[in-house]
């Protein structure tokens, strides 16, 4: 459990909040590059950490992320005309460049220089790995561009999707490090999903339903090791990475692409679940890409024209009680992503953690909260939070078989960091 004030501290990310400050100190995925496919394309509304913004791309190809509303009368610039290196408000013709600087106020004499006094708040927006990233913190503290491995491999080796999750970011992220739910909630998928099935690791998973967990602090966050019995007295380890504040990476299975998530607050009651899959040494196959586009693995299908999942709370996630009874799926909801999202959204927009009863196997979640609270305290004293340094981003999840007496952090040391040109350690 958390006390109410602790829960509020971790779940509130709007401007001026400590947790919001932590998110704003690192580059966050804002939207897919494909949402702004060409110069002068229509702008896209973006809400991040309770700030309403507008993403757009000018005539020269400069990306812009600016205040959504015109400084004049508060009209949404989503209705704006994207033309000749600027976005023009359709109400009275005020025009802004990609930095948010007003460059024309037609009603005022040009010579007056009035427009120079008008500037919308704007944030940098840069493309990396098919994702447009933004940094919303103080300019003097802007870190180098993100170095997450999925975002820097060649484009044909990586696939990223995003979906709307109608819950606070923290309960979504905690699902990403809650390793003990996999044997229940996702038990129907391990041997069926095209992006999971066929690995030796699945046999270990299903052969030992009571994994033992080890949680070890890493420089950027946590390693969460799930240990199951393998042959000859060895252990099969699945090591999940959590990097503060909101990055999680799931251990690989066989030669399948490796996947993970970012959980980025939209506001305090919604977040973006970013899902990536990648391989280091080969392009993703047609078969894999088709499966990802079809919503398999950790991806999902959509309500057409939106990033809202096709299975959502308005249709009870298309729960199939007969399939639940037959055991086709443990919860009756199809697909790994929506199995998680349906349950996390059912907790309510912000779960009341004063009422929960955690158990020992929840130590991954307890430690993640502890690290976040500790980092917030340190941040108030001027320390840079974990997750921003390049070496914190150079991390990997791993699936390995190890002798029984070895700490996985030591024995799998190389497997837990990026090894240029080498695939993930996998079973």
């Amino acid at each position: 459990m958390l006390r109410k004030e602790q829960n509020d501290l971790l779940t509130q990310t709007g401007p001026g909040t400590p947790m919001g400050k932590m998110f704003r100190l690192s580059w966050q995925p804002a939207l897919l590059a494909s949402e702004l496919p060409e110069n002068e394309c229509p702008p896209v509304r973006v809400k991040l950490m309770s700030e309403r913004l507008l993403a757009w791309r000018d005539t020269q190809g400069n990306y812009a992320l600016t205040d959504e509303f015109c400084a004049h009368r508060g009209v949404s610039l989503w209705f704006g005309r994207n033309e000749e290196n600027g976005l023009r408000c359709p109400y009275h013709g005020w025009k802004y460049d990609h930095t948010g600087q007003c460059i024309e106020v037609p009603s005022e004499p040009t010579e007056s220089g009035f427009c120079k006094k008008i500037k919308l708040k704007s944030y940098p927006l840069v493309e990396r790995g098919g994702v447009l990233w933004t940094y919303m913190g103080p300019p003097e503290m802007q870190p180098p561009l993100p170095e997450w491995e999925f975002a820097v491999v060649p484009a044909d080796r990586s696939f990223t999707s995003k979906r709307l999750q109608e819950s606070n970011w923290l309960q979504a992220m905690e699902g990403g490090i809650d390793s003990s739910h996999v044997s229940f909630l996702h038990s129907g998928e391990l041997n069926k999903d095209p992006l999971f099935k066929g690995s030796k690791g699945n046999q270990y998973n299903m052969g030992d339903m009571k994994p033992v967990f080890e949680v070890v602090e890493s420089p950027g966050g946590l390693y969460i090791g799930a240990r199951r019995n393998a042959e000859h007295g060895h252990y099969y380890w699945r090591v999940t990475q959590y990097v503060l504040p909101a990055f999680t990476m799931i251990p690989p299975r066989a030669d399948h692409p490796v996947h993970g998530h970012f959980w980025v607050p939209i506001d305090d009651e919604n977040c973006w679940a970013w899902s990536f899959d990648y391989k280091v040494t080969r392009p993703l196959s047609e078969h894999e890409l088709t499966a990802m586009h079809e919503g398999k693995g950790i991806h999902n299908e959509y309500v057409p024209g939106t990033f809202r999942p096709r299975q959502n709370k308005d249709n009870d996630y298309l729960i199939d009680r007969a399939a639940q009874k037959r055991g086709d799926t443990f919860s009756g909801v199809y697909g790994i992503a929506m199995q998680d999202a349906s349950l996390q959204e059912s907790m309510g927009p912000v779960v009341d953690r004063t009422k929960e009863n955690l158990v020992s196997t929840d130590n991954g979640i307890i430690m993640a909260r502890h690290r976040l609270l500790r980092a917030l305290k340190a941040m108030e004293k001027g320390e840079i939070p974990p997750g921003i340094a390049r070496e914190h981003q150079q991390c990997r999840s791993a699936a390995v078989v190890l002798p029984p007496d070895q700490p996985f952090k030591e024995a799998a040391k190389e497997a837990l960091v990026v090894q240029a040109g080498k695939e993930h350690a996998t079973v």
Partner: protein
Amino acid sequence: MQSESARMSSAAEARYRIDAPNSQPRAVKVIALDAPSERVVKMLAERKWSRATFFTASAFGDAPKAGESFAGWLSDLAGRTKNLVEEVDAADLVVMVAAAGESAQAASIIGEACSLKRVMTTGLILGGADKSDEALSKTLSHLRPWALMLVVASAEEYVEDMLRALRA
């Protein structure tokens, strides 16, 4: 018409979650396995807890002898000998605290008692970041067979955070 899930997962409906206790306090026995962790456990014992009680097994040497009785392997923080099996029998969870690099051999005796009584065990190793991998490995190898959940924490405050999170 809104679906059941849409209506019931709203912030408005969250207000109607029953405001009544949904659990009884758990009995958590926290046992220091060595002198450095005993210092941490003693500090914790001075705070207010629901049903957490604190012990030490640090005075009983490194190597338990084969066939030795469980009795006498545990003492409270005032130094009074406690019956290990009785204490474990009354526990919902046993937390063993060890310092990285120290021998945690008492874990085998405590773990065996927990196994006998089917009580959940958690091992906490403190100071893992400051010690060599070899030192950590030594402590880990003694705890691992007997802890169903293991945490290597760099900050001593984690013990309190974990116990509070578990409503100890």
